[in-house]
């Protein structure tokens, strides 16, 4: 019920967007987010984009996981 999935926006028409959810194309509402562009990833929940996913932050989080192996402060 609370599950939300990151998905890529592949088309935008006003407040409606089309996303690719694991190969399935779905129409969602973009009413809750600002400045979304085709190619952005958004968090999709009950047919709405809740927020954008930041590629830089995702990269940093993954780097932090990897650093855990070095016994560092990561």
């Amino acid at each position, binding site marked *: 019920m*609370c*599950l939300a999935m990151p998905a890529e926006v592949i088309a935008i028409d006003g407040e409606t967007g089309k996303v690719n959810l694991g190969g399935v194309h779905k129409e969602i509402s973009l*009413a*809750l*987010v600002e400045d979304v562009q085709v190619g952005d990833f958004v968090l999709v929940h*009950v*047919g709405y984009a*809740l*927020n954008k996913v*930041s590629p830089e932050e995702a990269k940093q989080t993954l780097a932090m996981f990897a650093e855990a192996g070095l016994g560092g402060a990561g």
Partner: protein
Amino acid sequence: MKYIDEFRSKELAHTLADAIAREADTGREYRLMEFCGGHTHAIFRYGVQELMPSNVKFIHGPGCPVCVLPIGRIDNAIELVQQHDVILCTYGDMMRVPASGRNSLLKVKAAGGDVRMVWSTQDALKVARDNPHRQVVFFAIGFETTTPPTAVAIEQAAEERLANFSVFCNHVLTPAAIRKILEPAETPEAEQVAIDGFLGPSHVSAIIGTRPYESLVEKYRKPVVIAGFEPLDVMQSARMLIRQLNQGRVEVENEYTRVVTREGNRKAQALVARVLELRRNFEWRGLGMVPSSALQIRSGWSEFDAEQCFPVPEITASDVRGCECPQILRGVKKPVDCKLFGAVCTPENPMGSCMVSSEGACAAYWSYGRFRDGSQETAA
């Protein structure tokens, strides 16, 4: 899939597990409550508990919107269909939740009631447009994640002058529930659970940000880490909590920085604030009456409020005898402590709400871990 697969890497899971084993102090226990059923689900599905040292324990919290909705509100929804002849639109998870007298929306539908499953509030609006001569009620449930879509639908209905659409609002608030769990004066001593820190739900914070937890953390001195829902996110968040506890820090930290900021989604917050307001009191299954823990539709929008359009009486109903959902939702008991678990109560034939949604603790135990607790006991 991008942003999913990388956060499920087995190799990194072991890296993190090793790091946690190094950092966790063997001289103490770490009791971490994952508030949200989404985390419970991930912990079971990916065997995260097994990757933790034995002194790091996950306590399952009440963050499953289907599970915490009191039976009386489902009875209300059924009355709307059967006595007021409305078309009731609802998210799929609600269909099988047991109501009073072994009833459910699914059974009501099978008996000819017009109950329709929708994926989105947009679908509910469409049902209203397509059926101008029928009253259409959207049965709105959920935490801060599902609230903005409800607010969008109400605003849209007003714009379109959809006179046959209304919302039965049951939206609840996460921080209020955490406060209730931490408030010792509110819980009898025997029912209090020792908790050292919280994994906070990330999708909720995608909307509300991390800020609403700051005053809670300050007052109750328990750390909160906003944790993503993938297994590596859960592990890293547990590690961040362990570090805070080791260092004697008590802070709100954010592991899910790829979506969550301190401020959250301001556009969504503003929308919710325009349409909805705090409800003075709301009953939660498991937690009882919790003040300022839910939302209702503002009086300016009352023509879209099903509670104003139809008689919605307060119904006090009790759970199936033997069902331990209330205790499980507070973290006091585990699903395997329930005598009905697995014997009488299964996902196909749920007796209580915790067995219905995949985020319910009983459903998670049944689907992924029903033998785990037992096998650990035999091993000990």
